[in-house]
């Protein structure tokens, strides 16, 4: 790394080298049985330079001659965008706990036991169900150095558990599933299993819904599939800068119900997407995006912030060593007051949406979602009566989140990227057959 930085700095005003070393150890169960054990090792290195004021970029996974990598970067710098930032100076990284050595002490045998513990109660409860499961532990080592002397380095562990079940009856198929992720070991499978058993129980009967507008409770998973794709693009500083975000010019305006707040927060201890700094060496912080319905901030990396005349929010993200762009670390929607039962009781006829399929396919940029209800339940007179099928919902988040009846009182992590409560809204357009 140091060698590449030094050599690159001879050809360019500034240089930065970013390295990711990872080891993933997933254990896979298929069709109720242990199927495969894997180990994936990978090293990737990326080089960013500023040459004659322009950005150049090159990356390699696996071995590469330093000279080749530098030549790639130099070629791209001829056409690169003018750099609107300087690489950061040396920083002291905050102490955000994302590494737990205990994760690496969990042996393959214990991971296999955890997988069985996920699957067995589910197959016992429901004859004929076919379960897949995965138990994984990953270690990540991130290093960043630049020609201004900044060195950012940290190690991270993640542990994940997940189970999914498919139940086929005639030509009807039911999909259930639940997972958890943390930087610390997860040794208790009870919460995951309870959720899946509850899904199976609620889905036992089928219910039908009319084609019209209905009140809907989005579960945290439902919030993830219906709203989050649009929120990710709306708060992306780059999309704001382009003028393609519907809320880009409306900072300070109240566009959502006062019950809704949204934060980007990579500083929560041991949360799966937490980190001491972003992929450009900018220290992690909590950024308010929506507070009591009012649009507060957008997310920036260094270059986008430079173009927009603002500062990086510490949201420069490279994926696995790709180009830097602004991306949320984790979205946090603080919970409200209502219990799930209270929300259900309140509905005469309505829906609970847990999983939407294809919601992110529509005009996400415009805030629209439209998807088939993969897992959802009907509410009649304050009671859950069964699972819905052949049902499609669609709407626009800027209309739907303008009026929220209640937020659930507990928030749940979903997909590693969202911590959210249930969200209960008065009217969503439903089409059914």
């Amino acid at each position, binding site marked *: 790394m140091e060698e590449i930085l030094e050599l690159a700095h001879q050809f360019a005003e500034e240089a930065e080298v970013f390295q990711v070393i990872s080891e993933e150890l997933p254990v896979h169960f*298929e*069709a109720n*049985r*242990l199927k*495969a*054990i*894997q*180990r*994936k*090792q*990978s*090293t990737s290195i990326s080089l960013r330079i500023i040459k004659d004021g322009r*950005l150049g970029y*090159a*990356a*390699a*996974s*696996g*071995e*590469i001659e330093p000279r*080749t*990598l530098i030549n*790639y*970067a130099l070629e*791209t710098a*001829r*056409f*690169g*965008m003018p750099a609107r930032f300087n690489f950061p100076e040396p920083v002291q990284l905050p102490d955000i706990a994302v590494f737990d050595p205990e994760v690496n002490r969990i042996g*393959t045998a214990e991971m*296999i036991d955890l997988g069985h513990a996920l699957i067995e109660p589910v197959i016992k409860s429901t004859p004929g169900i*076919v379960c897949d499961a995965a138990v994984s532990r990953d270690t990540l080592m991130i290093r960043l150095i630049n020609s201004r002397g900044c060195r950012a380095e940290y190690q991270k562990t993640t542990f994940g558990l997940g189970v999914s079940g498919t139940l*086929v009856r005639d*030509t*009807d*198929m039911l999909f259930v599933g639940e997972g958890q992720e943390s930087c610390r070991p997860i040794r208790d499978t009870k919460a995951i299993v309870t959720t899946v058993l509850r899904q199976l129980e609620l889905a036992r009967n089928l219910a039908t819904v009319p084609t019209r507008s209905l009140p809907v409770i989005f579960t945290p998973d439902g919030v993830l599939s219906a709203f989050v794709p649009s929120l990710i693009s709306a708060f992306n500083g*780059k999309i704001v800068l*382009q*003028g*393609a975000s*519907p809320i880009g010019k409306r900072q300070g305006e109240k566009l959502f119900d006062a019950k809704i707040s949204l934060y980007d927060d990579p500083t929560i201890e041991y949360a799966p997407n937490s980190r001491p700094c972003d992929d450009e060496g900018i220290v992690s912080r909590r950024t308010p995006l929506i507070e009591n319905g009012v649009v507060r901030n957008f997310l920036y990396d260094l270059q986008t912030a430079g173009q927009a005349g603002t500062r990086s929010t510490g949201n420069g993200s490279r994926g696995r060593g790709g*180009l830097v762009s602004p991306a949320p670390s984790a979205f946090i929607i603080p919970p409200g007051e209502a219990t799930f039962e209270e929300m259900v009781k309140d509905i005469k006829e309505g829906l609970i949406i847990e999983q939407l*399929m*294809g919601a992110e*396919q*529509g*005009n996400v940029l*415009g*805030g629209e979602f439209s*998807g*088939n209800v*993969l897992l959802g339940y009907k509410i009649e007179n304050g009671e859950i009566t069964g699972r819905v099928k*052949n049902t*499609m919902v*669609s*709407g626009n988040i800027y209309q739907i989140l303008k009026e929220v009846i209640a937020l659930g009182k507990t928030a749940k992590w979903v997909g590693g990227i969202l911590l959210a409560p249930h969200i209960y809204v008065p009217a969503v*357009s439903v*089409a*059914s*057959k």
Partner: protein
Amino acid sequence: MNVVEIGHELADLLRKYDADYLEAHLEESRSSHLTYRGKELESTDKTSAVGGNIRALVKGGWGFVSFNSPDNLKAKIEQAIEQARFVSSGEARVEHVQPVVDTVSENIARNPVDIPLAEKKEILDEYNSVIWSTPKLQTSVIGYSDNYRKYLYINSMGSYIEQERADVTLRITAIAADNGEVQQAGLSLGNRGDFNRIKNLHQQIKEMAQRAVDMLTAPHVKGGEYTVVLDPVLAGVFIHEAFGHLSEADHVYENPQLREIMTIGKKFGCDELNVVDGAAVAGLRGSYRYDDEGVPATKTYLIREGVLTGRLHSRETAAKMHEGLTGNARAISYRFPPIVRMTNTYIEPRSTSFEEMISDIKEGIYARNWYGGTTSMEMFTFSAGEAYMIRNGKIAELLRPVTLTGNVFVTLKNIDAIGNDLDMNEGGGCGKGGQSPLPVSNGSPHIRIQHCLVGGR
């Protein structure tokens, strides 16, 4: 690391171990990307990758080790074997394949990765200025990528296969905005490494940008059931998403109920319906000579005259289901083990013309172009990038984009007309099991579906 040298070393090593089956993959690849966001070239990069993996099958269990440093190959092989032993409870075995030694080169005049960035930029600059000459246009996104990949398959039975491929993809999105409304229109193209085929698209791009603007004032469709006509691009996505994934044997082989639904010989659609998947159909993004388990590519009829006649297999699923090999095991890179995937999937053309197809529709929807699609086996949703009302047998007003959903079994039976104008779409990539985007193609002539559920408000 020189993959061919390591390949030869591995070919000798793999035979020496005690495992039911051992295979290794090695690859080296190079690519370049250019991204425009708005008027400017936002970023450009060049990347390279090199790496490999070892997969072992011992007493029905699989072990898999991937790496991008070639040190200590023996330890890696031993680790994969040890992992496979640990599984012990597995029931996997692989169908026998005659060992093959072969070298397959990609037939390209000019490796796209080696074309100077300046030449790529010149053509993309032209396209971007075409988009920006459209009034009310808010912004544009252009993504160009090319890739060259050399990859090796080696196994403990004596197979040694070197293959190469090149890919070029171009995605263009025009975004229009007015009064807080945002609409977009897109174009997605791909081919086997021929840079010349993405030239001269100016007219097409101009129309696309104008459509994004027109959609701002277009009405929303009212949600409900309609007679829907799909263009070849969208019908191709439909057959890939809704039916193709169900034909992947790994979804079916461990699930007795699903196996029953997908029983060979069952009637799935009208007599005119033929559905094909095949990497042996040459020259397309999903084409190859051997799959990633060293199995020669084939062309498989999934549906013939409306009847289920075949499905797609890896060596493992073929062995389990006692059905023939089809050569459909593919991995997106050395980081992943091969799984059952589609290649080039299409509905074969018949005789109905587009005009005949819409002539007796009183009120329906003509849905065009690809926006995305997913499936959960039985249910699918797919989104059209472009939609029009059909009124009294004629194409009428432009609509906002629509999303179609349904049950695949019902929908296949509801196809009541198949056109004569097969066209293949090579702009898409397929995702499955965390492996995305895998180069595939799909296609169809125009098709008509009765009683299709359309999302709206």
